[in-house]
């Protein structure tokens, strides 16, 4: 998944940056460039930070089915 179109940064590269300690969108931008230009991908970068940190902490991230069930009962 290409997250940052300006720099052509993929979700995998962002996840690697987060796993290496980049815990904010600013740190991710500094580490791999994602979100450093127009900044319009920062929301997706935040989602990756949350998911990667949950994975590192051993917490199961909420899956799509759970989210769909929450939304539509």
């Amino acid at each position, binding site marked *: *998944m*290409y997250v940052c*179109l300006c720099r052509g940064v993929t*979700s995998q590269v962002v996840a690697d940056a987060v796993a290496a300690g980049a815990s904010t969108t600013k740190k991710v931008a500094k580490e791999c460039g994602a979100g450093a230009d127009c900044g319009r991908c920062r929301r997706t970068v935040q989602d990756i930070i949350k998911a990667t940190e949950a994975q590192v902490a051993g917490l199961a991230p909420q899956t*799509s089915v759970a989210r769909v069930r929450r939304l539509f009962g």
Partner: protein
Amino acid sequence: MTDTQTRTLILASDYRVPDPSRVWPLLQRRRAELAGIGAHHVVVYASTWEHGRVLVTIGIRNPEPVVDLLRSRVWFDWFDAVGVTDIPGVFAGEMVERLGVSAAIEDAPPGIVVAAMTSVGDVSMLVERVHGAIGRFGAAGVRKVWVYQAFDDPHEVLILQEIDSDENARRWIDNPDEVAEWMVGAGVGPYPPLFVGEFVNVMRIEENL
């Protein structure tokens, strides 16, 4: 395949727009720009569960590296035009399998499209397992399955499933077949939640525009 060869790729993105009825007319007005980047067709799906959510897939023939294609102003201008401030992730890959699960029935009503972008264990094995489960898929109301594999991550897939009715789509979402591992991985990290919707329109673009 290398980035320098001309290939057919698909770009797909799932996002929310303030007014979904504007998506199709705005796309039609950009036919020339889309032709300029090698687009040969654009398909629009609209969510039937979440108003304003759309899934747009674009088939492209272009020898440029994907990252160069994505830097094109076409995308930024497009997101600006439809009112998308936060640019979503873009899936870039190619079709690896297209399965007609059940025989097409003439005059059958259009099906429900359930799409998932996610990461799976092994795409080749997944396709093999789907082939083995095709009878169960058909019994569950699945008509067709398209499997796309990402260029940037061999585990990443976009899977489109056409299901014969909303009722069966709901059942499939609640209790997918055991081989449909993509149904539980969507909605995590950069991946959008499962998309449930209907086909809106397809635009075919001639090369010599």
